[in-house]
């Protein structure tokens, strides 16, 4: 297995619905062993992109590669090596939890029975219960067990935790970290689309923010938190500052809030020159970076 081939490679992907460009020239690369976040508002093109990875949709133009393979030509090979948890999971209602897992396992070359038993216990899912009686949270848990037990090289999650209660969400993420990443983490790649970013913050190595089908920002998480800073200051009297190059400035009376994009040192020295009473600098979390990314769009334009 060639470890240099990216697990996901997307080049200039475009996919239209009628005249509407759902995805418009998107490129991104997911390296082996990474957890990659795919952030965007509803309708930004996240699910369309994921469906192109799984050959559920065909691109209008551009190339999509999964494990270096074209999912249109090598659909079974690609699908044998990945699993997918969609935002809406559905099972055959007449099957029990145990039968559903049995059914899913029948399509797979490998199925980890110990993990299955562990997770059923952890989620307190009764194998003899019919799937039609499951809550939304339990359905997602069942889908997650089904996605983890084959031990896939790639786990694709599309808005996996939206609509779930906080405890189920937390357990979901702990399970991805614990059960999925166990064994050889180098062989475990995660691609997760979400707008509940703060919960996944510690998990995400690298991310792309997508907006109206286009890439807005791609960065490693640590580098992003180092680049975007929020500076808050209070002065003893009303003070007007130039603050050229700030991403955004909010000023009200003696209070000042500045967003810095890689230039916090320069902005800080300008603020310090006016001797603030109080000065605080903090990194933006990934969620805050996502929220301010529309400012970025304007400054790029």
């Amino acid at each position, binding site marked *: 297995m060639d470890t240099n081939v990216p697990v996901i490679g997307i080049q200039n992907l475009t996919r239209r619905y009628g005249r509407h460009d759902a995805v418009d020239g998107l490129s991104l690369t997911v390296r082996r062993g990474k957890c990659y976040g795919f952030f965007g508002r509803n309708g930004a093109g996240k699910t369309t992109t994921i469906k192109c990875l799984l050959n559920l949709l065909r691109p209008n133009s551009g190339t999509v590669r999964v494990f270096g393979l074209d999912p249109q030509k090598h659909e079974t090979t690609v699908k044998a090596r990945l699993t997918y948890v969609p935002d809406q999971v559905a099972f055959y209602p007449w099957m029990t939890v145990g039968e559903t897992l049995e059914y899913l396992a029948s399509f797979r070359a490998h199925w980890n029975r110990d993990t299955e038993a562990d997770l059923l216990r952890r989620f307190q899912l009764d194998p003899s219960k019919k799937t039609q009686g499951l809550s939304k949270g339990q359905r997602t848990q069942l889908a997650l067990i089904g996605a983890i037990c084959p031990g896939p090289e790639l786990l694709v999650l599309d808005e996996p935790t939206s609509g779930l209660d906080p405890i189920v969400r937390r357990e979901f993420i702990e399970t991805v*970290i614990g059960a999925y990443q166990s064994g050889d983490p180098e062989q475990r790649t995660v691609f997760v689309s979400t707008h509940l970013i703060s919960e996944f913050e510690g998990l995400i190595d690298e991310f792309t923010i997508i907006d109206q089908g286009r890439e807005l920002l791609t960065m490693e998480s640590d580098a992003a938190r180092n680049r975007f800073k929020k500076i808050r200051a209070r002065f003893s009297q009303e003070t007007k500052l130039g603050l050229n190059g700030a991403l955004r400035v909010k000023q009200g009376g003696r209070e000042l809030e500045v967003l810095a994009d890689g230039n916090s040192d320069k902005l800080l020295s300008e603020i310090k020159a006016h001797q603030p009473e109080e000065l605080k600098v903090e990194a933006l979390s990934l969620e805050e970076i996502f929220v301010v990314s529309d400012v970025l769009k304007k400054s790029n334009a």
Partner: protein
Amino acid sequence: MTEDNSMLLQIDFKSGSPVYLQLVDQIRYAAASGGLRAGEPLPSIRALAEELRVNRNTIARAYEELERQGITESIPGKGCFLNESQSPYTKTARQKILIKKIDEAVVTAHHLQAGREEFLSLAGDRLNFFERKLKGKDNPKN
């Protein structure tokens, strides 16, 4: 997933410092301040990753860095243990702890409008006070 020797590690995404380095610093701090003793194991990568909800690669990277710095030693199949030997980093780590405390005092002094002379003189007084106290008790403890 509870570990006996939970070191109360915490990640602060707002610090802007890489997550693995935050862990390295906190474990070095725990080692230097006695929160973690020689021969004691670090939590397993999986347990710590789940607890902090942080990628396992990040924990693994922090543990590799600690080993590279000579703070810990990994024993295959058993886990990571704090080294017996005094590493050359311990002094730096100790100074870092001390600097943090001194900084707090300096900030307090500034707020209370105590000048440099007054601060240094008070610090000298306190050092003398504790030295006298130790001598008085004839306590050979270092």
